């Protein structure tokens, strides 16, 4: 048996490659479909975060963080006890209630006091 004879046999074998039967092709396709059905769909940016578009429209995460901070600060100012203002009001009320000359607080001094001065 010569090399050329062997090459001829190999060439015939290459040309006569068997074709998969319809049954085998169907089984392979069924396997492929079954395996593919088990794959999780590849997440897209929009699919993974439905609110991603809204965040982008608002200006991004940093802008939203600033807005949230401002909102919380407003709530705090609205509900927090205004203790320094109350303290000042009570002090002034006690001062006016005391009818004692030397302790009177003159918020607006009378003009004649300036006239007496030489």
């Amino acid at each position, binding site marked *: *048996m*010569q*090399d*050329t*004879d*062997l*090459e001829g*046999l*190999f060439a*015939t*074998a*290459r040309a*006569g*490659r*068997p*074709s*998969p*039967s319809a049954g*085998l*092709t169907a*089984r*392979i*396709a069924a*396997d*492929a*479909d079954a*395996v*593919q059905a088990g*794959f999780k*769909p*590849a997440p897209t940016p929009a699919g993974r975060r439905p609110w991603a578009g809204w965040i982008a429209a608002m200006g991004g995460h940093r802008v939203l963080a600033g807005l949230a901070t401002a909102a919380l600060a407003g709530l705090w100012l609205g509900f927090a006890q205004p203790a320094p203002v109350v303290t000042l009001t009570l002090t002034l009320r006690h001062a006016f209630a005391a009818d004692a000359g030397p302790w009177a607080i003159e918020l607006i001094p009378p003009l004649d006091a300036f006239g007496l001065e030489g």
Partner: protein
Amino acid sequence: MALDALSDVSDEALLVLYANGDPWAARALTLRLAPRLLGFAARMLADRTEAEDVTQEAMLRLWRMAPDWRQGGTGVSTWLYRVASNLCLDRLRKSRPRGLEDVAEPEDAAPGVVARLIEADRMQALDRALAALPDRQRQAIVLRHIEGLTNPEIAAVMDIGVEAVESLVARGKKGLAALLSGQRAELGYEDGG
């Protein structure tokens, strides 16, 4: 994406499409790769039914591996040949030693057509000679001379060096020539070598 539109897409790209849910990618890969796997397994096992089982199992492993496929490494066909080779060798190890008489007769010899008869006889003789070779030599011969893989590709499939592939192919061809040398006239070859 329709099947026709996938004809120019590489195996690797088809596998990625399959992993991403494309319904046609698996069909395209099957049409492209299953005949090669079946031919290889049939030559290795000399049994059509077992060859079909190996082909289905190898393709199933490909589907399961698809989401983890990394492009740039071993090609899809090389990977599949490696899987099919291992499946064939496993079956050969588990089965009883196969004698020349175990090789199946041709299913259809196209009666009345002498050329087809001669061709069928030659393929039967080749299959018998291949079955008589050691498994690794048969694997290397089939991959190199029938499936048309390059020596580096065969080295990747068999997980050996290129020089080892060359040695296996050379010894395999020498063994085939010796096994077929007494059948030249019977197979329709003219005298002269």
